[in-house]
């Protein structure tokens, strides 16, 4: 049986690595601070919506690029929205891919866009699994009677 302290240390190490690798940034910490007794599942709920939303956006983008003529204006709007939600959640790497993506859209660079779409899919899968692991650890800590350490 792993102790709460061990789990907390694991959690702290994990979150530190996520920040170092750029998966998460300070915005995520800000969101953690907004969670309290009045809404203890705020962050889990928000991330869940983000994951669903992102999946839909990626599907829409994939379809858009399967068309005979690509509507770069529409694509740009979708990526812009993706960038916004990534930024709001603190998913930094995903957000950066979106920035590149928007630039390629402006240039109507098909190859660049397709590469970005691939990257976006990749980063989405990665950050989704990171969030999953993070929340799993949180649950374990709470179950073991500990509290979740905050990033400084």
């Amino acid at each position: 049986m792993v102790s709460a302290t061990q789990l907390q240390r694991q959690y702290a190490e994990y979150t530190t690595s996520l920040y170092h690798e750029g998966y998460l940034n300070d915005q995520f910490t800000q969101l953690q601070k907004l969670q309290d007794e009045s809404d203890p599942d705020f962050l889990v709920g928000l991330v869940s919506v983000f994951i669903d939303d992102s999946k839909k956006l990626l599907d829409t983008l994939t379809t858009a690029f399967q068309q005979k003529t690509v509507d770069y204006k529409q694509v740009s709007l979708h990526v812009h929205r993706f960038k916004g939600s990534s930024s709001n959640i603190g998913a930094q790497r995903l957000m950066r891919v979106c920035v590149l993506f928007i630039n390629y859209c402006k240039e109507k660079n098909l190859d660049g866009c397709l590469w970005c779409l691939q990257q976006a899919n990749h980063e989405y899968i990665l950050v989704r699994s990171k969030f999953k692991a993070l929340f799993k650890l949180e649950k374990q800590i709470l179950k073991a009677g500990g509290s979740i350490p905050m990033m400084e």
Partner: protein
Amino acid sequence: METMNIACDQLRSANSKELHVLAVDDSNIDRKVIERLLKVSSFKVTVVDSGSRALQYLGLEDDKNSAQFDDLKVNLIMTDYSMPGMTGFELLKKIKNSSTLREIPVVIMSSENILTRIDRCLEEGAEDYLLKPVKLSDVRRLKDSILKSEGDDEFRQIESQKRKRNDDRSPQKPTPKLARL
């Protein structure tokens, strides 16, 4: 004298009563975040997903008398800039051009740090332009400035009431703006 007492009570309650914010954003993530930020800062929050829904809520589209909706009285509007259909800028213009709504402060939120855009919004009467992601400190700063200007408004009204009373010494009816609180 009685009017003065009512005004003082309302001034005191302005600070303890919850300010009501109407937040407008087409992204549901952004809506959830801004809603949380505002609730944590003790605002009452209504969130809508478009400019036209915002105008509907404010009663502008239905030509309803805003005095009917005292409970729904909005003290601040926060809107995303880039929205499909009506942009935040267009919403801002419509509000500032409305005789019933122009007094409500409007804050624009945007992920783009474009100076010309910021200038345009401020020139059109926006109270502030916040860069996304909006932070708790932004919201707190906003709250302070809204509370202060509401307090200032009431103070000015009390002062002008005093002056009027001294001028004509006739009984005063409470003005609609005091009844707002």
